[in-house]
Every structure is written in C-alpha cells, then in structure tokens.
C-alpha cells in the first residue's frame, strides 16, 4: 500500500471536520474502551499475565531464528509449505505464483493486516484475479475503495448509514438500513463466494513452532469459511508472530480478546495445521504460510525491538486521544494510532512520515493499556530523536528549539527575556486576563485564548521579597 503520511495534517483537518467520522469514532470508545476496563478490573491475574506476555515475547524475539526454523520444520511435517519472504515484493510474488500454478480465478480473503502491508489486493487484481474480502469490515472498505482505519475494526470510520449506501450501490435491490438487515445481506452475498473460491487467504495471529499451526482469532467465522472451502489456504503473517508452544497461545489468548474487544474470548480461535488429511471430507488441499520480514528483522537489537512484541490488538488506538479525534486514515498507511505511528516510519521511512511520531501528546495512555507493555511514548520520542539527528524537522522548529536552548542555558538571559515577555503579553491583554490573538502565536490562539501573565515573573517577585536569594 502507498504511504500517504506526508498529508497527515491535511487529512487530520478534514477528519476533524467530518461529523460522520466523529459519530463513528465516538462509538469506538463505548464499544472497546469501557469493556476492556471492566474485564481488566474483573481479572486479578491480568497484570501478571501482561508481565508474563511481555517477558515471553522478549524471550521469543531473542531466539526468533530458532523458533522460526522449528515452525518451518513443523509445517513441513504437517504437509504444508513455508515461504520466507524478505520483503513485500517477494511476498506478493510468492502468492501470485501459487495462484497462477493452481489456476486460481477467484480468491477470498479473511482479515490480514500483513496482506494490507504488502499491498496484496492490488497486485492480485492487476493480474486479473477476482479478490473478495470476507471480513465484514474489510468488505465494507473494499466496496468503498478505502484502506482500513483500524487494525481490528477496519470500517470503524463508517456509520451505519454510510454502510447502507455502499451496500445499496453494490448489491442493488431495496436499501436496507438496520444493522441486522445489512449484516444478513452481506452474509448472503459472501456465502456463494466462499464456495466458488479457489484460494483462501487469511492472516495469522499466532504461528505455533511446536505444531506448525497458524492461529486466527476472530468473531465472524469468515476466516474459517475462507480457509476450509477454498482449494488452497495461504496464510500471510509477520515473522514476529511466532510462539513456541500451545501453552504460549493460552497466555496470549488471555490478554488478546480482553485488550482488543473487551471480551473474555473472541468467538472463534482456529488452529490450522497443514492441508486436509487423508480421509478428511473437507479442508484445503494445499497449505502455505507466507512469512513476511519486510523490515522486522532490522528492528531486532535496536531501540525499536520492543515494538516487535505487538500482538495487534488495537488497544493503543482505542485509547489514543489523537486517533479518537482524527481516525485511522490520517496516518496515511496500514497501521494507525500509536502502534502505527511507530511502525510506519520504521517500515516506510522517517522522511515521509515526519508528522506521525510528533502527532502525539505523549500522554501515555496507550502504554498503560498495551497488553505486552510496549513503551510506545518512548519509542515515539526516540523516533523524534532520530528525526532531529537527521535534520528532518522543519527549519522554523529547529530555530525555535535552538533559541530556547540558547536562552535556557543562560539564567540571566532567561530571566531577562521572561520579564520582558511577562510585561509585553500582560500589556497587550490589559485587564481582560487573556488574549484573543497574538502575533507569532496563531498556533495557540487559533483555537483558544491565551491566558495573560500576571505581569512580573515569579523569580523577580521572589527575589524582591527575599533580597538574599541567589
């Protein structure tokens, strides 16, 4: 997928002006935040599970090569095939080759953020394949020709009425408006497609090294219909999604659903191990796992390794005030919110994503809910540091920062400039106590008044009262 992050500000402004988006985003909180809080409070073991999950992920990352090789062996033993892909282009090509070899025409897809990351749909469609997203949220945005705006609720930005319009345009017939009718309509439309599909592509929440299983955790059942009714099942997943054993799946299941959707469990947890066995009456004839690196291995051993713990639950964006105000599309790529603001610069380049690490108040709420305790604000700050070191910040900001440092390192100058500013701003405000506008401070006064200073600085007043102060 193309990176459109340089337009963050313009997109954010448009998002802020969109009343439908505001309505849709308001529901994210009710749907996810409150329920997560209830469940976290109800489980005495929750914080300990988060610690264990963090530590286990750290262990896995420190031995990633071992577990990936184990996984490959186990998939092969089960009759499947692992395709190691160094980058997005290789992953796309591997999948195109499989589709061509099996003579595929129609392809169904369960939700996979990695397939979005590697731009799979465009590549398949360019080769003439019919590609249908079957996750309801993904289906909605496919109809709308939009990228996902949330990693677990891809159409979180769409209101029910907007979905009604999309379905009416795509399916014809009477325009349905109730949620029940809309869901039923999609159910019936997609049902035929599962049975027609030659290839079914799903993501993978976990890859189990012990058994060679891929695991998806879902609620709709489309990922299951996608993989059991197609002749060929392809799983796309990042190399960091590996877990050593089934016991580790339990650990992560216990935090995933609670963090993601505020449920004790999602509806379906499905383990897929190889192709159908002799005597099996259904299931795919081929099983392929497309293991995608695409920049992940480069994060190992560096300041961003912690980000590889991410289990893609979406809690950080659900709790992010900025995401809650502008939605996912403003971030301009596949992954939005705090985790996206870290990953997008790392995957797409610091130079085309300068806004993302900065469009954050460092309020820390994301970190406080992250089930694997990724220090997201620290990682964002480290990205700012790298931007600063590489001269990627705007000249005006660099000048302001240099001026601030120059003054702050000189206490007498600092006191002098502060006294000057206190008097000047107070003078402009008069007795009103505030300024409606102030030259060179439009960034502040465009959206709020500037409270006026009292007129004298604290340090000068203190010194006046305590003449001995030094």
């Amino acid at each position: 997928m193309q990176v459109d992050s340089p337009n963050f500000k313009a997109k954010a402004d448009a998002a802020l002006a969109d009343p439908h988006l505001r309505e849709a985003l308001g529901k994210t909180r009710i749907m996810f935040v409150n329920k997560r809080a209830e469940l976290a409070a109800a489980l005495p073991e929750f914080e300990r599970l988060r610690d264990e999950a963090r530590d286990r992920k750290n262990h896995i990352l420190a031995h990633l090569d071992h577990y990936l090789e184990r996984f490959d062996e186990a998939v092969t033993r089960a009759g499947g095939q692992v395709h190691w892909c160094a980058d997005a282009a290789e992953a796309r090509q591997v999948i195109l080759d499989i589709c061509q070899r099996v003579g595929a025409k129609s392809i169904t897809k369960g939700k996979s953020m990695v397939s979005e990351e590697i731009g799979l749909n465009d590549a398949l469609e360019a080769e003439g394949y019919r590609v249908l997203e079957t996750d309801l949220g993904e289906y909605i945005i496919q109809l709308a020709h939009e990228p996902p705006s949330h990693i677990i609720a891809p159409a979180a930005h769409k209101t029910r009425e907007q979905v009604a319009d999309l379905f009416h345009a795509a399916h014809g017939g009477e325009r349905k408006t109730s949620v029940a009718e809309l869901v039923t309509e999609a159910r019936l439309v997609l049902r035929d497609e599962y049975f027609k599909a030659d290839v079914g592509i799903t993501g993978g929440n976990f890859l189990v090294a012990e058994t060679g299983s891929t695991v998806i955790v879902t609620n709709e059942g489309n990922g299951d219909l996608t993989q059991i009714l197609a002749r060929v099942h392809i799983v796309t997943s990042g190399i960091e999604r590996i877990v050593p054993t089934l016991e580790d799946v339990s650990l992560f299941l216990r935090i995933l659903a609670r963090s993601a959707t505020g449920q004790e469990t999602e509806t379906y947890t499905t383990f897929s191990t190889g192709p159908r066995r002799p005597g099996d009456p259904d299931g795919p004839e081929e099983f392929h796992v497309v293991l995608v690196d695409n920049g992940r291995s480069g994060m190992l051993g560096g300041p961003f390794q912690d980000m590889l713990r991410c289990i893609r639950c979406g809690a950080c964006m659900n709790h992010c005030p900025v995401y809650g105000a502008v939605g996912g599309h403003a971030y301009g790529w596949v992954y939005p919110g705090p985790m996206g603001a870290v990953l997008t610069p790392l995957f797409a380049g610091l130079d085309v994503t300068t806004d993302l690490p900065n469009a954050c108040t460092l309020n820390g709420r994301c970190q406080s809910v992250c089930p694997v305790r990724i220090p997201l604000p620290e990682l964002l700050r480290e990205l700012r540091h790298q931007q600063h070191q590489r001269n990627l910040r705007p000249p005006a900001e660099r000048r302001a920062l240099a001026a601030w440092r120059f003054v702050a390192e000189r206490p007498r100058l600092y006191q002098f400039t502060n006294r000057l500013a206190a008097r000047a701003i107070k003078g402009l405000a008069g007795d009103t106590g505030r300024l409606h506008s102030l030259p060179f401070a439009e960034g502040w006064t465009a959206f709020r008044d500037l409270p006026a200073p009292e007129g004298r600085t604290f340090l000068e007043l203190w010194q006046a009262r305590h003449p001995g102060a030094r």
Partner: protein
Amino acid sequence: MPPDHATRPRVGLFATCLMNLFRPNVGFAAARLLEDAGCTVEVPMAQTCCGQPGYNSGDFEAARALARQVIETFEGFDYVVGPSGSCMATLRHDYPKLLADDPTWRPRAEALAARSHELLSFLTDVRGVRDVAAHYAGTVTYHDSCSSLRGLGVEAQPRLLLGTVSGLSLAEMDDREVCCGFGGSFCVKYPAISGRLAGDKTTAVAASGADTLLGGDLGCLLHLAGKLRRDDQPVKVFHAAEVLAGMADGPGIGGEA
C-alpha cells in the same frame, strides 16, 4: 531516608517555566504550602527550564545540557519540589535515562531524581500532610494531567487535600484519564487536534456541573482556560495549590469567567 534536616528540610522550589512567566501566584502558593508543611523553602535564581521541550522534540543533547544544569543548581537541597507533574516527572524519570551512559552524571541524576517531587504528592506522601486550613466557596472538578496521573501516580493526593478545604465540593468529570490535548509543543504543532481535545475536555468539565476547574499542571490549565474563555464558558480555573494555600481569591487563570 529522612535527610539530616528531617525536622525542617530544605526544599529547593522548582519554578517551572510556565509558572514563572504566567502564574507566579502558584509559586507563592507552593511556597506557603511547603512552609506550612514544615519545610524551609529556597528558590535558586540560577534555575531555568527542566529541558523537557528539548527532550520531547528529540533534541536529547539540549535536554542533557539542561539536566546537568538543573542537577548542579539543585544538588544541595534535601528535596526539589515543583508545582507540576510534567516537569517533576522529567527530573524523576527522564534525567536518569538521559544521563544513563555518563558515569559522572548518572549517579548525580539518580540522586536528584530520588529527591524530586511533584508538589501535591510531596505534601501528602513525604510530609504527611492530611489537611489544609483553606476555604474555597465552590464546586470544583479536578483535571489529572497525564504526567501526574500516569507518570507519577498522582491521583488520590490532590483529592485528599482538596477534600479538607472548607466550602469546597468536588464533582468529578467523565473521562478523567483522557488527555486534554495540551501535550507541550503538540498544542501549537497540531492546534486543530489539540483544540478538539480541549473542547472534549471542557465539555466534560461543564457536564460535571463544577464552577471551577483545578489541576496540578499549568500547561493543561492554560490550555483549558484558554478554551473555556474562547467559548465563553463560565468556569474559573486555578492551580490546585492556589486553592489549597488559600490564595485563590484573585482572578483565575485566563481572567474572570
């Protein structure tokens, strides 16, 4: 470990940039509260900024330079106390990280961090203050700054003290744990988003029914007062220290509502 001056510890008052420039009354209120809590208060004139603007803008070198300056300035005190969760979290959490690779400065940073406190939590947790003698006639709502709440775990302390102010009743707002959108330079780099978040917060303030908004961080308070004044909302704004010290009789932040 109580310092030598356990009976009357010497506290260096950290005069935050925003307090120094915009709201000296908060500094004097802090000094009064500290003195009432049995401390000797001194204000080193050589102090400037904690360095957080540089740190959060990715200029770690500038942040280190200022960290060293603050450490030198405040090294002789039993405690460093400031009326801001944001600045004091920088001293407590960030200085040791910034200077972690510097064998000379790391121990000094850690020593300072261990003695640095946000004002309200210092009063309750270190000095054992359980009540204040102040009076304030009004219904207040308390805004938790993210750096106080999540950075320093300051949540109960201001409420404990405010609960002892005669005439004051506390009406909590919804979504207390949600950021107000100030975020330091964020508020001018992304003013539209910052303004939206301020609006969400002032809507919650209004819904609480409070006539006064209090908080422990001037950044948030200047931002929210500015939004309240822009929208002509009749809510007064004070730093909690001003109320606790009985020094909230003048105009609030941003002038009269």
